[in-house]
């Protein structure tokens, strides 16, 4: 048990240290998120009301795309330098090791998106409660994006053009998170409560937490076979 905790914590810490030493990777994802959201007003015009009504969708779709961008390297670095083999050979259950990696991925890419979203929400004329709902929805939703995305990242391991393929595999699976996440903000915007959306999102997160690690572990074993 102690060995397990040590291994899980070490893997988490290793990925965080690596991310710190290659800061630009995480910053690129964040920058992408900000730039995409900022470009929307240029495309649809500066009408505040229009921007406000589009904001939930725009923010969520941009978050999906930003996450996609970061997924390709989730396992491919470890795959290339052989660390993945060592992780597969570790005596600890692979599905738990995978959870460590995903937690690190979320801390590096998901959490910054949540933290910067109020700024972008204000840019798109969202008011206080809407922004809080947006943050809550992103807080529950971005782990789902990391977990589901990791399945795609594992399945495209070592393939040529894996990055593009991930999007095709994973974006359809992101639909529920998108619907619930953007819907939560919409609900508040139209004067009702976002509680139903957020509860469902939490349920979805729990379901994903239960099932995704298994799928990721299986995919990793298959693709590094």
């Amino acid at each position: 048990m102690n060995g397990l905790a040590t291994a899980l914590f070490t893997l988490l810490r290793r990925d965080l240290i690596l991310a710190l030493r290659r800061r630009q990777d995480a910053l690129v994802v964040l920058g992408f998120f900000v730039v995409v959201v900022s470009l929307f007003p240029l495309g649809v015009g500066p009408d505040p009301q229009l921007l406000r009504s589009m904001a939930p969708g725009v923010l969520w779709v941009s978050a999906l795309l930003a996450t996609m961008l970061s997924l390709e390297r989730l396992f491919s670095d470890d795959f290339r330098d052989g660390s993945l083999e060592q992780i597969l050979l570790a005596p600890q259950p692979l599905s738990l090791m995978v959870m460590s990696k995903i937690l690190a991925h979320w801390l590096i890419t998901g959490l910054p998106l949540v933290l910067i979203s109020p700024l972008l929400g204000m840019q798109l004329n969202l008011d206080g409660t809407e922004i809080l709902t947006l943050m809550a929805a992103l807080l529950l939703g971005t782990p789902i994006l990391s977990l589901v995305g990791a399945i795609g990242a594992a399945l495209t391991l070592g393939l040529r053009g894996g990055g593009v393929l991930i999007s095709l595999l994973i974006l359809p699976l992101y639909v529920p998170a998108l619907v619930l996440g953007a819907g939560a903000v919409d609900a508040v915007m139209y004067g009702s409560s976002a509680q139903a959306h957020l509860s469902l999102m939490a349920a979805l997160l729990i379901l994903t937490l239960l099932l995704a690690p298994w799928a990721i572990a299986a995919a990793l074993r298959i693709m590094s076979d």
Partner: protein
Amino acid sequence: MAEQRVQWFKFASPPNFYDLAGRLAPWFGGLAAILFVVGLYVGFVLAPPDYQQGNSYRIMFIHVPTAWMSMFLYVLMAVYAAIGLIWRVKTAEVMAKAIAPTGALFTFLALWTGALWGKPTWGTYWVWDARLTSELILLFLYLGYMALHAAIEDRQRAANASAILALAGVVNVPIIYFSVVWWNTLHQGASITVTSAPTMETVMFSALMLMTFACWMYAIAVVLWRARLELLERERRAAWVLERMGEKA
């Protein structure tokens, strides 16, 4: 238990499956043709025009069966994929791969006919209603499955990896469907209610059923044919393939 396993594997062994599928497929194909003809006759000649939609409702007889088939086939594909993944049954892997193109085709038809039905009904080809939207996402799922299968060179690995994807997809399909339905009701979109109309006459219902069975038979026939080809390609170095091909040459 062990004996049962042996029996099952014997049935599922590639040469046996190949021969059996070759014998069965024409029957399913023939049945499909007959059912299509009868179904179209009932749907177009016997069934009267709908008092609300006129004749455009007849698109239902192809739209609804293809939409049903697209979902059934995805689930079936996932079931075969799971069997292939867990028990490593080659024929199940091949069946999963063979189902995907036909499933995608039915999904495309459901979308196409849905759009053409939408124009006279809603006045526009595309409406983001729950069924069309989830069909569209289902099409993406099928395309993703096929793309992943094609991207991986090693057949065994391709089969296993896409099996994982199919399973992830099949868990998601109901969630996607319900989230889309929910999204749709919240945004007060249009939705097709014809199929659930209590006034649907027996003639219409039987036409719908006939067409559904026709689609089933067609799908079974085509999938068996394709599975045979996939099996030949995968096992092209095996003795049983050479034997069968030698006879023909």
